C-alpha cells in the first residue's frame, strides 16, 4: 500500500519518490492533490518503485497523471533504459502492443448529423466487427500476414484501405523498423489471421464526437480542427497477435531470469538486456505487433469512412474524412534524448502513455512541425476526449511522453456492482450519447464513474508544460465490444 512509500511533493503537479532500497533512480508521479488522494487505494506507487529497480534505467521511473495499478509496470508508466546497460521488458509495453488512438476529422458539423446519429451508430455497430473473438473482413494468408507485420499501415493503403496521405500523420508513418516475422510464434500468427480490422472488447471503442471547445486557435487550425466539427476517435491495438507475442516473450524471459539468477521484484517485470539476442528478438517481434496494430486502425478508419458515406449519402469529397493523427500508447521505442548535456539513444517504454514531441522535432509530421505533435487523450464514455500538443518540457522531463487517458479508479467488479439495476445505456442516452455495446457487462465496467476525472488528468499535463490543451471533444455516439 502507498503508506509504505515515502513521497515528497515537488510542486503542485509532481510527487517525488526518493531513491531507497533497491531503487537505481528516484520515482516521479505527475499528480495534483486530487490524483494523489486516489493513489492511496492502489499499488501503482509501489509499481513505480519496482520499475526504478530495473537495470540501466535512466533519470527517473515516471508515472503520468492517469496512473493506476497495472501488472508489473503501472499503467501510465514511462521508463527509459540505456542501450548498453539497460533492459527491455515485454510487461513494460503491455499485452496489447501498440494499443493506441486514431483521430479522424470530417467536413461535417454537429448540425449535419444531429438527426442521423442513431442510424449512424447502428450502421457503425453493424459494419465494424466488435467484441471478443470477432473476426474481420480481411482474412490473411501466410504471405500477406508477413507483409502486414513488416509494412504496417502501408500494407492497408496498398490494399485499398485508405490513401497514402494517411501515413503522413501516423506516428512513425505507421511502420516500425526492425520487424522480423520469424521472431513471432506460430500461435501469435494464428491468432492474427482473422482479426485484422476488428475493434475487440473491453475498453476499446469507436466514438463519434464533435469539437466542443477550442483552447488554442493556432494549433487547432494547424490540426484542421474547428468548433462543432464532427470527428471520430478509434481506440484499439494489435488484438490477439500482440497479446500472444507479449505472453510468449514474458514466459521465455521469466525462465531466463531464473536460469541466470536475476532477481525480480515482480515476475511480470521479467526483462532482457537490450543488447542480448533475447532482447533484440523481442524488439523485432514487438515491432511486428506494432505494425499489425497500425494496419488494424487503418482498416478500421476505412470501414468507418465507408459507413459514413453510405449512411449519410455523401461522396468521399463531401465527407472529407482525413486522419488528424494516430498515436500508440503501449510501446518501447529507441529515441534520442539529451541526458546531462549529451544526446543519447535510449529505449523508452510507454505503458499507457502517449508520445508528446514538441514543435521542431524531426519525428513530428512536416505539416505539424511548427506547432508540435498531436497528443490524443480519450476519456471515458460520455465525457469525450482532449486533443493536446506536445511541449518542450516533455523532452526535458518525461522522455517526450504524456498521459493516455483518464485512468481507472474503480475496479471492474466494483463498477459492475455499482451499475447493477441501472441502465448505463439509458443514462448515456440522457446525456445525449448513443451507446451500443456487445454486452451489458462491458457498459457497467466502463461506466463514467469508474474513471478519474479527465479534466484533472489533462490539467496536470497542461500546467506542467508537458502537453498543452488544444481542443475538447464531446461524445455523440460510442460503439464497444
Amino acid at each position, binding site marked *: 500500500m502507498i503508506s509504505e512509500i515515502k513521497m515528497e511533493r515537488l510542486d503542485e503537479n509532481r510527487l517525488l519518490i526518493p531513491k531507497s532500497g533497491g531503487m537505481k533512480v528516484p520515482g516521479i508521479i505527475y499528480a495534483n492533490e486530487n490524483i494523489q488522494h486516489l493513489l492511496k487505494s492502489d499499488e501503482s506507487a509501489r509499481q513505480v518503485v519496482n520499475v526504478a529497480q530495473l537495470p540501466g534505467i535512466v533519470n527517473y521511473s515516471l508515472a503520468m497523471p492517469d496512473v493506476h495499478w497495472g*501488472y508489473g509496470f503501472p499503467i501510465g508508466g514511462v521508463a527509459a533504459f540505456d542501450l548498453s546497460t539497460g533492459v527491455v521488458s515485454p510487461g513494460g509495453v503491455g*499485452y496489447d502492443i501498440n494499443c493506441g488512438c486514431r483521430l479522424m476529422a470530417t467536413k461535417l458539423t454537429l448540425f449535419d448529423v444531429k438527426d442521423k446519429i442513431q442510424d449512424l451508430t447502428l450502421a457503425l455497430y453493424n459494419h465494424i466487427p466488435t467484441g471478443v*473473438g470477432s473476426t474481420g473482413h480481411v482474412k490473411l494468408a501466410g504471405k500477406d500476414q508477413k507483409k502486414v507485420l513488416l509494412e504496417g499501415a502501408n500494407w492497408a493503403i496498398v490494399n485499398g484501405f485508405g490513401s497514402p496521405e494517411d501515413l503522413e500523420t501516423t506516428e512513425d508513418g505507421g511502420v516500425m523498423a526492425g520487424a522480423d516475422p520469424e521472431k513471432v510464434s506460430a500461435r501469435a500468427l494464428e491468432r492474427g489471421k482473422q482479426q485484422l480490422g476488428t475493434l475487440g472488447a473491453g475498453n476499446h471503442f469507436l466514438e463519434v464526437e464533435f469539437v466542443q471547445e477550442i483552447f488554442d486557435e493556432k494549433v487547432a487550425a494547424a490540426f484542421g480542427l474547428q468548433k462543432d466539427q464532427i470527428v471520430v476517435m478509434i481506440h484499439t491495438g494489435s488484438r490477439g497477435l500482440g*497479446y500472444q507475442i507479449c505472453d510468449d516473450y514474458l514466459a521465455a524471459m521469466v525462465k531466463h531470469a531464473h536460469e541466470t539468477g536475476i532477481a525480480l521484484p515482480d515476475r511480470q517485470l521479467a526483462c532482457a538486456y537490450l543488447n542480448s539476442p533475447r532482447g533484440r528478438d523481442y524488439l523485432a517481434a514487438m515491432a511486428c505487433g506494432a505494425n499489425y496494430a497500425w494496419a488494424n486502425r487503418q482498416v478500421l478508419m476505412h470501414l468507418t469512412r465507408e459507413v459514413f458515406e453510405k449512411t449519410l449519402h455523401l461522396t468521399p469529397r463531401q465527407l472529407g474524412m482525413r486522419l488528424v493523427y494516430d498515436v500508440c500508447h503501449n510501446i518501447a521505442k529507441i529515441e534520442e534524448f539529451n541526458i546531462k548535456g549529451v544526446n543519447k539513444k535510449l529505449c523508452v517504454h510507454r505503458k499507457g502513455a502517449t508520445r508528446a514531441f514538441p514543435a521542431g522535432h524531426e519525428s513530428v509530421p512536416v505539416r505539424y512541425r511548427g506547432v508540435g505533435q498531436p497528443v490524443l487523450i480519450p476519456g471515458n464514455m460520455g465525457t469525450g476526449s482532449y486533443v493536446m500538443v506536445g511541449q518542450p518540457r516533455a523532452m526535458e522531463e518525461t522522455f517526450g511522453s504524456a498521459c493516455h487517458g483518464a485512468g481507472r479508479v474503480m*475496479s471492474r467488479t466494483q463498477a459492475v456492482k455499482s451499475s447493477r439495476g441501472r441502465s448505463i445505456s439509458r443514462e448515456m442516452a440522457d446525456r445525449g450519447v448513443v451507446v451500443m455495446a456487445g454486452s451489458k457487462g462491458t457498459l457497467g465496467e466502463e461506466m463514467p464513474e469508474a474513471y478519474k476525472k479527465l479534466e484533472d488528468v489533462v490539467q496536470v499535463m497542461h500546467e506542467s508544460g508537458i502537453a498543452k490543451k488544444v481542443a475538447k471533444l464531446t461524445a455523440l455516439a460510442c460503439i464497444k465490444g
Partner: protein
Amino acid sequence: MKKYKLIDHTADIGCEIFGKTKKELFANSVVALLELMLGRRSSSETKEKEAFETKSINVEGIDLEDLFINFLREVLYLFNGEGWVVVDCHPLQVTNKHIIAQLTGEPYISTKHQVKIEIKAVTYHGLSVKKTKTGWVGRVIYDI
C-alpha cells in the same frame, strides 16, 4: 469448499482459487477461468456430453507458481487461439514443475457460449500458490 472467489484489482481482475489437493487446485483454476470468461454453462448444454472431445496437455514450469501460470496460459490459448472451450479438467499427474492433465471440451459456438469478458492474458503480477491448513490456495491476476 468454495472453488474460487474474485478479488478486486483496479484495471484487471484477480482470482483466488482453492483446492484440497494440488490436483484439485489446478482443476478448479480451469473452472474459475472458464466461468469468468463464459459464465455458467446451462444444463441443456451439459446433456450433450457425448459430443465432447478430449485432449491431454503436458505443461512445465520453473517452480509451482510458474507451472500454475503456464498451465492457465495453455487453457486460455485453447480458447483464444483454437476456439476450444474446456468443460472439464482432470489433472493426472502434478509435481512442482510438471503437470499432465486430461481436458474435456468442445468447439466454441457463439450462440451456445456467451462470452462475458475477454481475458487477454494470465499475468505473473501478485501471483502466489500456497499450501494452507486445509489445502492449497492460488492467486492470479488476469489482464482484461
